[in-house]
């Protein structure tokens, strides 16, 4: 009873809440880091060094007037923000934060579930997330959101191919689709997959930037061209949902990258006995540290690089990343056969 219902429910509650808090603080982190990059201070007024800014933002967004355009497609307009938020959250069902640990005399695995199609589950849920953006643009019945959503969906579909192909080479290395087993494979192989699959790692990261609509690929919300992007007509809490979904997707991308390429919850050099003293740091802390590094790089890239032009984006996706990913896949397969 407890193992079947109580523990999974507790895990879901904890992970969902932690994610939502992380998402709201990711917004603050981004503002702070970009401010520092530009020699500014960033939010300073709410709380010491502005650490209560997310609370203020949330209150502001909730008490704002919620407007639905008259000619909008009412049902779809309401559903779109929800559709874009939900996939970002349910991906966490298969992300492992740590191995099995004993907690109050019970063996508890630090992941909500470990299905043997875990990685495919992540990809398929992410592919459903596109609907939020397309539908938001369509339902607003307004020109700029429609243009932005068409751009966005074309971009997402193109880069999905490259990202999925890199995942296939990781699966080839690990020989499994289960997220926990992929981390175990990195432990048994004595090396993080980022070092044996550097091409896949780089392509995955660039693809993740495009998949999450982040700079330098933030075409769908290019303010200067589209007056705000696919969520132009949204306000109040519904806008907040889109906003949070974007950051939730960034966090998901970081977690997936950590699990696949940086050894998930493993400490650095997990097979070196000399570093065993690092074991006092709990495994999930390593996971959080590695994910945080990715989050920081996401923000860093945004502060550094200018936006791509749309045709450049498409050329990069179809003519560079996809061929690279396919070549990497073929080479991985050949090397794997030769070594076995």
């Amino acid at each position, binding site marked *: 009873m407890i193992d079947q219902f109580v523990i999974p429910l507790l895990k879901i509650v904890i992970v969902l809440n932690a994610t939502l808090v992380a998402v709201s603080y990711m917004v603050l982190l981004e503002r702070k880091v970009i401010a520092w990059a530009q020699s500014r201070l960033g939010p300073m007024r709410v709380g010491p060094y502005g650490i209560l800014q997310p609370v203020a933002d949330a209150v502001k967004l909730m008490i704002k007037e919620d407007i639905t355009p008259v000619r909008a497609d009412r049902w779809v307009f309401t559903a779109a923000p929800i559709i874009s938020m939900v996939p970002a959250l349910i991906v966490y069902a298969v992300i492992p934060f740590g191995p099995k640990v004993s907690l109050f005399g019970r063996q508890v695995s630090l992941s909500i579930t470990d299905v043997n199609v875990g990685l495919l589950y992540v990809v398929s849920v992410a592919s459903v997330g596109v609907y939020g953006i397309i*539908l938001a643009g369509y339902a607003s019945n307004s020109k700029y959101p429609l243009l932005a959503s068409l751009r966005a969906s074309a971009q997402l579909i193109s880069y999905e191919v490259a990202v999925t192909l890199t995942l296939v080479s990781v699966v080839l290395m690990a020989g499994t689709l289960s997220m926990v087993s992929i981390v175990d494979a990195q432990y048994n192989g004595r090396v993080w997959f980022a070092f044996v699959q550097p091409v896949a790692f780089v392509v995955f990261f660039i693809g993740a930037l495009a998949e999450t609509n982040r700079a330098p690929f933030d075409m769908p919300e290019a303010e200067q061209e589209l007056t705000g992007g696919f969520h132009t007509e949204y306000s109040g809490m519904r806008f907040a949902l889109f906003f949070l979904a974007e950051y939730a997707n960034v966090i998901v991308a970081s977690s997936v990258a950590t699990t696949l390429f940086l050894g998930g919850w493993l400490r650095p050099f997990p097979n070196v006995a000399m570093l065993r003293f690092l074991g006092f740091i709990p495994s999930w802390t390593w996971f959080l540290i590695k994910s945080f590094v990715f989050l920081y790089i996401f923000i860093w890239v945004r502060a550094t690089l200018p936006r791509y032009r749309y045709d450049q984006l498409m050329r990069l996706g179809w003519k560079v990343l996809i061929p690279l990913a396919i070549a990497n896949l073929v080479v991985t397969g050949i090397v794997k056969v030769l070594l076995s």
Partner: protein
Amino acid sequence: MGQAIAFYTLAAFILGFAVLVVTTKDTVHSVLFLVLDFLFVAALYVLLDAPFLAVIQVLVYAGGIVVLYLFVVMLVNLKRPPEAHHDPHRRTKLGLFLAVAVLLELGAIAVYQTTRPVLSVPGAPMPVTGNTEQVGWLLYTSYLIPFEIASMLLLVAMIGAIVLAKREL
């Protein structure tokens, strides 16, 4: 018992959404009901203990093909009412014919299923466990030729689409 309840609930949703797909006036809404329908079919696969099929269903149909449907529907102006045909009952006749054909086919399959002896899986027993591995094993042993033919067909279709779309190569 629990399985039966889950199955009938899912089946009701699948049929309900399928009816909505064909009865809804707004084409975009119709496509959205189609997505919901596919998601519930995926849930049915999970119930049948075939998680691999379920995620592929979501990935390929709900996440891939229907997105392209939506593109087409949004880019083509469908607000115009359809032009009247000189035979107003043409659709009814065609629909009736198709319905009878599908019904006969389903009936034939049901009869065949109950009368034929239980087939053992052709070939050696599978040396692998796990849904994904088993699907892969079957595709590359017992069903190798259908699998290769299907992939050839897809390749030909892809080349055909490129040739048709590009005026000059």
